[in-house]
């Protein structure tokens, strides 16, 4: 198997990449480098799923830029040291896209590249939804939508109590927002002025049954969060420069949690998935389709 990964990182290169080197927050990287990484992540997603009987395609493709911006620019981390105490935390509320995390984690030397080939297999450490006791780098397990904003809020309050400057990021699906527990957490985060908590909504406009607005409307989403006491932003979730700016702005907010509504396309990068994101929420891509998908991603500007 060949998983396309970035062999040279911005932060470090050569053999030393195995060392436990701290990756500071907002480390310099160009938007175009992030775009390139996002492209590679999309290719990785296809490869990783190909080892499993199926996978969540369209949902993971929509958040590629968000994830690479977080893991290659925003989060304070330590290479090879997934449990480093003073890391920033990232929780994958929309846990069904764990497949998009695994290549990023392998690249950070959280675990060997070879693990990627075991995705979704019996007893694998790399599961369809992330399991904190299986895969290094997972800050909390998820799978049932709607829980992780609460968990992240708990972490944010605990970090503050311990006087640590950790920042906690939670990625939510725009269908996940239907869950009442998200609003319980939203209410509580504003109440406790958890300014170290950032929610990113992957607003790809689609949940499992179809367009989110026709299944169960959530708009105006940014306004809803604002009315719940959050600072909220709305950005193009496929534009790395914009995302970098949004995260920078989020880190300036000192009295409120921040919600970044990232407008994205479900299935982004693969035309037939963009056209019917629902049929590719869960699927198995094979043969000519897989080749065509790879081709489209490689050739996109």
């Amino acid at each position, binding site marked *: 198997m060949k998983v396309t990964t970035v062999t040279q990182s911005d932060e470090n290169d050569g053999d030393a990449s195995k060392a436990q080197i701290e990756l500071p927050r907002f480390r310099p990287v160009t938007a175009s480098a992030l775009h390139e990484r996002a492209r590679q992540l999309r290719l990785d997603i296809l490869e990783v799923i190909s080892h499993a009987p199926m996978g969540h395609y369209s949902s993971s493709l929509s958040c590629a830029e968000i994830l690479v911006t977080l893991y290659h620019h925003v989060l304070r981390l330590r290479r090879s040291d997934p449990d480093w105490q003073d890391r920033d935390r990232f929780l994958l509320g929309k846990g069904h896209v764990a497949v998009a995390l695994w290549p990023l984690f392998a690249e950070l030397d959280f675990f060997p590249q070879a693990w990627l080939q075991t995705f*979704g297999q*019996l007893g694998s450490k790399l599961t369809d939804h992330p*399991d904190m006791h299986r895969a290094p780098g997972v800050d909390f397990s998820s799978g*049932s939508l709607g829980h992780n904003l609460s968990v992240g809020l708990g972490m944010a309050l605990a970090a503050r109590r311990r006087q640590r400057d950790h920042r906690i990021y939670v990625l939510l699906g725009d269908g996940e927002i*239907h869950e*009442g527990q998200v609003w319980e957490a939203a209410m509580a985060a504003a109440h406790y002025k958890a300014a170290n908590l950032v929610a990113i909504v992957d607003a790809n406009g689609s949940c499992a049954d179809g367009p989110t607005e026709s*299944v*169960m409307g959530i708009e105006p989403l940014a306004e809803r969060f604002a009315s719940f006491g959050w600072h909220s932003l709305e950005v193009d979730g496929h534009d790395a420069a914009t995302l970098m700016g949004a995260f920078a702005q989020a880190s300036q907010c000192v009295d409120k949690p921040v919600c970044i509504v990232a407008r994205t396309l479900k299935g982004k990068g693969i035309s037939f998935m963009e056209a019917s994101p*629902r*049929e590719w929420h869960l699927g198995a891509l094979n043969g000519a389709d897989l080749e065509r998908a790879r081709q489209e991603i490689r050739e996109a500007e």
Partner: protein
Amino acid sequence: MSGMSDPFSFNAGAVESSYVGNLGEAFRRYGEQDEEVLLISPDLGAGPVTGAFVQQFPERFIDAGIAECNAMSMAAGMATYGYKVFVLQMGAFGALKCAEQIRTDIAFSRVPVRILSAWSGLAMGFFGTTHHALEDIAITRAIPGLTVLAPADDNAASAMLAASEQVAGPVFIRLTDANVNPVYDAPPEVRIGRFGRVRDGSDGTIIGTGLGAQLAVGAADLLAAEGLSIRVLDAYSLKPLDEDAIVLAARETGALLTVEEHLVTGGLGSAVGEVLARNALPTKFSIHGLPDETLTVGMPDELYVHYGLTIEETARRMRVLLAGKC
């Protein structure tokens, strides 16, 4: 590899599956015959159970979005207007996530809501441990006023749609996605509060529910070839439980093995064991189910093998039980 029907898609081929899918057609027909049948589901309208109904009667499908608890309580409200409200949920996000709404708004209120709990047991094992639905028998059996059914296969499930009308109150139907060894060729007769005697026998009894019934039949057939006469009870009615059938099986066959795609704690095995103890029936007895620990992940087919939920292992356990002394 196969083993899970795609919960999300109308496109049956999206994920290779062993699922037969008669239930979907049965549900569509049931809806066709009775205009009072409505469906509520949390972002789960497509898929093999309700896809056909939703496509034919889109206006009778209320999508609740990914808000399971609201779906349950809303169903309770709609049912007060006399509708036959079905709620389809994924096993993992049904009884466990909505235990209170089921108890309080549906069972305590005695509204005739029918909950279709699909992809129960290990059906969504690929998705992860969060998606195992292995405690729902324990939870639902502890809810007064709720009828709990667990069809053995697709045909049995189809039969339970209309059978649920036998009771005035709410019904929880635990659907299995497994198609290892279907028990019925056609929708069987369903008598709530009774088990089905699918095989007669005198040397011992295997009581199975859901996939467990499929395995029980398979194991009995294997053991028959060895000259053993094994009774098989299909425990599709988990609440009320068929105590008479349990007592009779213990008296007449002297050995009971239960089989279920549920934790060994609080499921069919516990329920049957309790009956034996209450009746002070000295019986060879063993529970075959999933261990009470954090389980691993994988496709259902693989997990069944991994945890011994197979015909062979069921037969082996029965042999061991019969060889032991009481």
